[in-house]
């Protein structure tokens, strides 16, 4: 009987350790995942916080420069609507290599991870979704096989 209790105590300690690791992990590495509107509403409170924002690159807004450090980009992202309906946008700065699906004329759907500083979203990563024209309307992930068929 005693062994059983000792084991239980040990297991509980282990569970507590896992719980603590998870809690502190979220505290230290969690990032707000926001829509364009959510971000715009409280952007001043989010200065220097890690954020992740999904949006569409505004057509014609991409300014790309080749520098010795790599490619430098300035562009704007807005809601997932057509060019004409797009409201307020967020200016983004990015130094690095863009994914293959990032179009320099704009219009790509992207997820940006970075920090908001001096009126600009300084991107650490730029990710793109699958090209929308490629996908069947009703089956988003379809291009990627079923369960767990993709990695990334």
């Amino acid at each position, binding site marked *: 009987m005693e062994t059983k209790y000792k084991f239980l105590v*040990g297991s509980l300690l282990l569970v507590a350790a896992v719980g603590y690791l998870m809690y502190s992990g979220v505290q230290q590495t969690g990032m707000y995942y926001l829509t364009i509107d959510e971000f715009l509403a409280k952007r001043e409170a989010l200065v220097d916080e890690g954020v992740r924002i999904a949006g569409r690159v505004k057509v014609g807004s991409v300014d790309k420069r080749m520098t010795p450090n790599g490619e430098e980009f300035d562009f704007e992202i807005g809601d997932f609507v057509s060019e004409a309906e797009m409201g307020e946008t967020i200016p983004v700065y990015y130094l690095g290599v863009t994914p293959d*699906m990032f179009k320099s004329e704009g219009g790509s759907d992207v997820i940006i991870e970075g920090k908001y500083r001096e009126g600009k979203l300084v991107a650490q990563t730029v990710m793109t979704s699958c090209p929308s024209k490629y996908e*069947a309307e*009703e089956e988003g*992930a379809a291009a990627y096989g*079923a369960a767990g068929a993709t990695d990334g």
Partner: protein
Amino acid sequence: MDDVGSLALLFAWVLAIYGIGTALYGAYSRRRDFVASAENATLAVWGMVLVSTAALLHGLITSDFSLKYVAHYTSTTLPLQYKVAALWGGQAGSLLFWLVILTSMAAVVVLQNRERNRELMPYVNATLLVVCIFFLSMVNFITPPFERLAFIPPEGRDLNPLLQNYWMTIHPPSLYMGFVGCTIPFAFAIAALATGRLDDVWIRTTRRWTLLAWFFLSLGNLFGAEWAYLVLGWGGYWAWDPVENAAFMPWLTCTAFLHSVMIQEKKNMLKVWNMVLVITTFLLTIFGTFLTRSGVISSVHSFTQSGLGPFFMSFLVFAGIASFGLMFWRLRLLRSDNELDSLLSRETAFLLNNLILVGICFAVFWGTVFPVVSEWVRGVKITVGPPFFNKVNAPLGMILLFLTGLGPVIAWRRASWSNLQRNVLRPMGFGLAIGVFLFIGGMRHYYALVSFSLCGFVVASVMMEFFRGVRARQAMMGEAPHIALARLIGKNRRRYGGYIIHIGVVMMFLAFTGTSAFKQERQITVNPGDSFEIGNYTLRYDGVESHDTPHIAYLKANVAVLQGGELLETLQPEKRFYKKPEQPTTEVAIRSTLGADLYLVLGSYDEPTKMATIIAYINPLVGFLFWGGAVLVLGTFVTIWPQRAAATAPAAIYSPGRNTVPAE
């Protein structure tokens, strides 16, 4: 031809319903003819699904663009192997492919058990058919693979270029085999609960199935990692993307299950725990499919919605309530016959291993669903990325590695001091020595030191087991060492096969450690003729070349790899432009050595200035991921190979110092 396919699916649906009804009625009324008829229905469902799959394959290979599926996922210029792979490249096809595997496995189960497990079989059969019905309903009523287009397009939209890759053609099938394979032990577990026959018959019957499912899950994950490494071009192989996690979670619980069943077989303990594990594993396979299909969690690869989410969720809830409900109903029969004898025992090591594996699984689950949970609870979506998963899982992985070394050498029931001294201290000393050696050599990375030491510990403890077994055989039978080794493994396949798998896992840990602790990365924009350095290589960019085919246009950068002024080879990282979906892709170039990979990506190319951005990575020890996988395959073959009936000599002979335990 396509009408044949959809008609066959409809027949299959009707037959499956008939099968469920007759199986359950047959079991209830003890009518053998009904039970047999239900099993024949399963075989007929299998036949129908085969016909339907053949019809879709025919459409894909002959480029019958009147079928929406064929027009969406193939083109006339697509190479044949990718036309076949398009079967699992899209949603409707992948569900059909799932069904082919599920019904084929169900048919094998039915044929294997014509004379065996007669009491369990009606429920096994009914459970399998219920799962079939779910997928059959999807392909019949929700996303029919044989939907026709109103007009026939002259050309198809083609398969996503990212999927036009060797690893991508074998990754989904192996993952599906793993996912679907988990259904078989689940079905037997449900049957055991339903009949109340809760001894370990269901576990022994499904041992090979579980191992097979685990094997394919492992391969599926590894192939996926290999594909990500070669195709996605970000220098790594694992990003903790929700879609990856979806495949990883059932692997974790399945691994836990493989270990904990040994305790049930030997000690009649952990019956409830094993039930929980086998049910959870099955639910996680469905949950994984739900994750990838529903768009509930945004993954880099699938942010859009699909209509299948609610169906998967409903099935998940139904399966969860039904199976756990059944388990609680039988809780009294699942009581253990034994208790732990001592904390210092192999049982404890196994239990801890289970707790850690399930703990990792829970952490991965939590990290994956956290955006959804935080939105419900706090109204804000918070995502966690790779740093979270690495931070949580690295210490847990270290404990797991330690237990991998401890498990084989610590005694069952109660480890004595002499057992510990003789069997545990020596390999531990070896591991420590490796750590000290590396430290003196200048390594100061804390995690890496711990990890490499533990790897040494595991290898030493496994080697010691082999060595001791061989020596005992030599002494008792007078055999030559190589014969003794072969016979030792041959007569205890499960145990020594398991050890070989452990060695494979250690090799993978080497790769995890090397790439996470010592990876180097350099991004640079260069003019033709410019050189730069990474690791101990000098790289010189020598401009680009291009060529064109009807399917793809290529742009290749020539990068000379030099070491000490001597040219080793010219690597060609590429940009490709696929013409049907008009999509550019990146092809990496790799120089592999056992110590490290040099991994080059052509980031961008500017035609007017001829400048190129090149990203170079040094990935230390990454090759061990692949070789570890190969060792894992070998170990699984050793384990799964049928044991000869005569091989029942007691294992105790070969493992002095251990308490009396039958051969594994």
